[in-house]
């Protein structure tokens, strides 16, 4: 079973983040595999290994060296397609989806396209659904588990109340919720093998796309409002009643 996994390389979220003059994120330093993508990679590896055949191919659009892709290859993915092009600087979500869709179409036969529900740096959460629309495929979101059987993908789809059991024809685009599996650590053998795995680097023109402008640009960036001070209650021995009252108001109890 061939599975494509869309992954993003991002600046380390633990480090200081800086913006360019055009309000986009600076991506000059070392890029790492977005942690939220590691769950999709893990699920894809498990599906491939359970099937006993097929390949896991990474699809990524990002500037710079493929250091984050190498991490996913070290985890066990088989190959990668990396779209690197300066003209994509500042691309919005829809343009990103177009690029990924074009890359997916180069990747040969596949059963699933897996993605995270959202990236850790951009947080639009819209790319996978746009990708499915462009490819004309079913889109299943927030998967906590994925099974492929009888030409269909069966997904337990996380909801606030529990989960829905969803099935769709394959190929399909499925997004994976963060934290639903424990991503493996790259083994030392995996690390050694990673650099020998096929990694195709493509420009936008290689994909037959003409993309140099997009509808959405970041006009300004504002700091999140700082949290307002809470209400202070002096404990005169009955403060607990106030807490109970507050929790009841919030319908927590």
């Amino acid at each position: 079973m061939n599975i494509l996994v869309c992954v993003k390389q991002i600046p380390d979220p633990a480090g200081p983040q800086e913006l360019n003059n055009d309000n986009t994120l600076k991506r000059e330093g070392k890029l790492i595999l977005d942690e939220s993508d590691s769950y999709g990679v893990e699920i894809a590896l498990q599906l491939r290994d359970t099937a006993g055949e097929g390949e896991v191919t990474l699809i990524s659009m990002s500037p710079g060296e493929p250091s984050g892709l190498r991490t996913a290859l070290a985890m066990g993915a088989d190959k990668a397609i990396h779209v690197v092009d300066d003209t994509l600087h500042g691309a919005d979500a829809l343009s990103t989806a177009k690029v990924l869709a074009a890359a997916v179409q180069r990747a040969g036969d596949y059963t699933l396209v897996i993605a995270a529900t959202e990236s850790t740096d951009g947080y639009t959460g819209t790319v996978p659904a746009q990708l499915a629309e462009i490819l004309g495929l079913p889109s299943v979101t927030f998967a906590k588990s994925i099974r492929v059987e009888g030409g269909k993908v069966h997904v337990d789809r996380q909801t606030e109340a529990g989960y829905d059991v969803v099935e769709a024809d394959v190929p399909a685009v499925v997004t994976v919720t963060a934290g639903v599996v424990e991503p493996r650590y790259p083994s030392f053998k995996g690390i050694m093998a990673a650099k020998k795995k096929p990694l195709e680097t493509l420009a936008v023109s290689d994909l037959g796309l003409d993309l140099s402008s997009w509808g959405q640009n970041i006009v300004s960036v504002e700091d999140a409002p700082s949290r307002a001070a809470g209400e202070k209650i002096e404990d005169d021995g009955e403060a607990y009643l106030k807490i109970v009252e507050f929790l009841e108001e919030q319908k927590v109890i």
Partner: protein
Amino acid sequence: MPDHIADELAMFRQTLREFVSAEITPHALDWEEAGRLPRSLFARMGGLGYLGVRLSEASGGAGRDFRYTKILVEELVGSGSLGIAVSILAHAEFATKVVDRAGSDDLRKRFVAPAVRGELIGALGVTEPDAGSDVGAIRTRAVRDGDEYVVNGSKTFISNGNIADYVTTAVRTGEAGPRGISLVVIPTHTPGFTAAARLRKIGTHASDTAEIVFEDCRVPAANLVGDENGGFRLIMQGFEGERLVLSVMICAQMRLMFDAARRYGLERDVFGHPVLGFQAWQHRLADVLTTIEAAEALTERAVDLYVRGEEANSEISMAKLFSAEAAVGVAHDCAQIFGGSRYMEENLIARLQRDSLAFSVGAGTSEVMREIIARTNGLVPPRKAT
């Protein structure tokens, strides 16, 4: 350094950093309390191939060089528990490297390969109650009896002694002095083997340290590593790697202490401004950092020579001597900035300082290092005939 090696080293470091921070650091205090590492840690790290980076491919290792060991050491020290690094390295380097290098295919298959996988835990047994730096004076005796050696004697300060499945043991098989010493792998399930006591140390608490006793332990003669009576040379060669591991460990430990001191000095206010607002502290930490950089440079040079297979005994000894002696002062200075909390058990700096006292004796005392430096640099006049 070629790009592909630099990339591989960088990925190994990043992977280990994530592994240590998620799988080791959160348990460090529990393991310090327990006085040993759980077997599951060896199995987990072995399963991922992290224990065999410098062991041969014939033994299931990765056949890489000391630069990979250096990363393993540095990232383990990052857990803040030196004992964890000591226990893992005693297994992955000290007990196994010599068997991998000089042992038979059969020994590699029976002892090194399972150690690489983390299924068997190894220890190195050289020091005795009456022979530490003076390795040539060991008394534990192995007497050949048919296809077996019969081993009697005792060893002390043995890292992993209680948790090990085998001890790569220095024994006397011949004449007195260094020319009568052999190395034999002794499984700890051998009748007559006892780990006599868990020794209570003042630091490196997560590393299990034991006194072990052999009473008529019968070991297959096939467990001999290299040639009979050829053990002293193997032990001395092994010590080079061991001392290099220690040098790297000390430098990483000093960095950790400096980082902690710097962080605290910037955060902690006293008399209305941060402690590091005082020039006295700025200069003190400037001195500390300069010392650390010097130790790192010496260690890096020794690692470089060692990796290239050049004679490095003198440089390794200098790196180990300088780092170990510097660490005591660095630990004191870095702890002092914490004021009263430097003395509190739960403060990381207190543990790091305590652990740093192991450095001037582990893998050869500072005095032995000076002896090697003197001998290898023409500082010992020839003896006059009497």
